[in-house]
């Protein structure tokens, strides 16, 4: 059996594929944050809690309303997105003329509140969320057994990421949005309702976080702290990719998944740290990120 770097080719390919799968998940998760920071300059620390709300929303929809995975994919992001709209309208709006850091502190506080409330209600052991029947099982690819659900994760994440990128970078709506955040007064003078656009964009970013949460439900335990440790990683992805670049986050998400996957094979104890090492290096060498523009 041939070997690469000391492990059999089969195993290597399997790990690479898994890295790709995780990467697609990171990309989906950081997409919302990239949209919010890139376009609105808001550092949304609540992202992890909103991801968790998406997963819980799916759980509640299943257990209280009997609605399964497929409807939840649509309903949960909308519901959580609406809470995002409420947050923006009532609280974030007032901080736009202040230093970024206040927005960060506010969203950090909100994350604490949301996580605390859910923890009070649901405890910490996590809730089971069954995988949808259509996606159970898997295929034996020869070099590894690929669960169908994981294949779905790659496909769907890629689709959502590319669709979002397309909307923002290539459509008229996206152009208005990008113009509005660069020079709101001017764009408003043209008759575009800028505040509403910003609110809806924030809601959209939050909805993306919740979508990632619904995707996570069947494979990770649905628990109130599921977002807390992930949030730091997501920030790292956005920072490395370049705060403000949608494509940067997508590419970095995938890339990081692969690098992390390889680290898990050769030096697993460091797989948590590798992302921060990369973040530190990127920040020192090219602080605007790999694809970003200095702000």
């Amino acid at each position: 059996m041939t070997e690469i770097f000391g492990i059999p080719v089969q195993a290597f390919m399997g790990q690479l594929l898994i890295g790709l799968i995780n990467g697609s998940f990171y990309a989906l998760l950081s997409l919302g944050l990239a949209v919010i920071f890139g376009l609105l300059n808001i550092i949304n620390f609540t992202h992890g809690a909103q991801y968790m709300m998406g997963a819980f929303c799916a759980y509640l929809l299943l257990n209280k309303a009997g609605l399964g995975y497929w409807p939840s994919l649509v309903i949960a992001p909308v519901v959580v997105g609406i809470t995002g709209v409420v947050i923006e309208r009532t609280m974030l709006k007032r901080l736009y003329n202040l230093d970024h850091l206040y927005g960060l502190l506010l969203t950090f506080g909100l994350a604490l509140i949301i996580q605390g409330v859910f923890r009070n209600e649901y405890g910490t052991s996590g809730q089971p969320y069954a995988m949808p029947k259509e996606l159970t099982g898997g295929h034996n690819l020869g070099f590894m057994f690929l669960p169908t659900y994981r294949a779905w994760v790659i496909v769907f994440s890629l689709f959502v990421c590319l669709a979002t990128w397309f909307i923002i970078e290539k459509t008229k709506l996206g152009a208005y949005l990008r113009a509005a955040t660069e020079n709101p007064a001017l764009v408003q003078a043209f008759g575009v309702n800028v505040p509403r656009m910003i609110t809806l964009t924030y809601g959209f970013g939050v909805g993306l976080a919740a979508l990632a949460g619904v995707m996570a439900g069947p494979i990770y335990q649905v628990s109130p702290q599921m977002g807390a440790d992930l949030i730091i990683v997501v920030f790292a992805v956005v920072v490395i990719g370049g705060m403000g670049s949608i494509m940067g986050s997508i590419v970095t998400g995938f890339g990081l998944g692969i690098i992390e996957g390889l680290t898990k094979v050769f030096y697993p104890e460091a797989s948590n740290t590798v992302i921060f090492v990369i973040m530190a290096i990127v920040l020192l060498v090219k602080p605007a990120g790999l694809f970003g523009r200095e702000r």
Partner: protein
Amino acid sequence: MFAVRKLTAAVAVALAAGGAQAQVSDGVIKIGVMSDMSSLYADIGGPGSVAAARLAVEDFGAAKKGMKVEIVSADHQNKADVGSAIARQWYDVEKVDAIFDVPNSGVALAVNQITRDKGKAFINSGAASSDLTGKACSPNTVHWTYDTWMLANGTGGAIVKTGGDSWFFLTADYAFGHALERDTAEVVKKSGGKVLGQVRHPLNTQDFSSFLLQAQGSKAKIIGLANAGGDTTNSIKQAAEFGIVKGGQSLAGLLVFLSDVHGLGLNTAQGLIFTETFYWDRNNDTRAFAKRIAAANNGKYPTMVQAGVYAGVLHYLKAIEAAKTDDGTKVVAKMKELPTDDPLFGKGRIRADGRKLHPAFLVEVKKPAESKGPYDYYKIRSEIPADQAFRPEKDGGCSLVR
């Protein structure tokens, strides 16, 4: 003459009873239940432990015996400095006489030291570190329920005996995980099995697919999960996804609680093998206890940690009654002197090093079809007698053991 004698006798009895009261510090026996009330271990110990302590005080009949017992509780949030601050405050200011529960070995070791310095009593039910009855043993500490040695030997030894003789470890990369892996690997090898490999994952990992793939590739019959809490439940959930059990390998959880199985659901957890020292469905006494705890704890059935708090409080109060004092060192000595007998763990005893001995059970999680009611999760595969379940006294390195 007779009357005077009777009167004297009556007065003497009254004085003696009053005397017993007076020797209990400030007339009140204050019990502190310190647990994790809000994060990782809240369902394993938490409010359930407080409920268990209350039941024990009730069942002991403290009121009828003229003993005043008070219970206070606090959340150590899994932080050693919060736990040690609470312990100090409790002992110095609030005159707490004994601390119970304390899941989380880091906090437990800190409380162990403080209790020793102040001569109080510490009856631990939730922590895993076998150092509590080993290197860090103390005349003021009793370690109930379980420890890492018992888990490793119970699960490891019993599984190898039933044919699981090749192992691959999925280990959480921190002291507890390493200790669990090391102890279990030793047992496996001693029982004639082989360890084919291991992989160390960072604490609080979300995604185990890469590690599980490596475990699958090793073709070991048993994949030992040397981790706890969220890491364990995540690895089990994802193992089901990757068809590990269907592919012929079995998962051995090295630290799993009833609440974890509940959180996973039987669909995912079925077939999991591990060791516990208490299961609510063993006999009528344990079932009755479970119903009472469920009523006081939001319908959640008791875990072995909560059962340990109940039994520990019960024995502690019996020891105070017998020793007629609540001085920590003396009461713990009495607890070791008196044999234990409670409806949950049966008959047992506490050794000189503070280790409470009781039988352990190798359990397997039922398939969904086999479960007939809420929390009906386990099949008991075998019982490990008390004298074999725990580390031999002389091997611990405890200074109290001559």
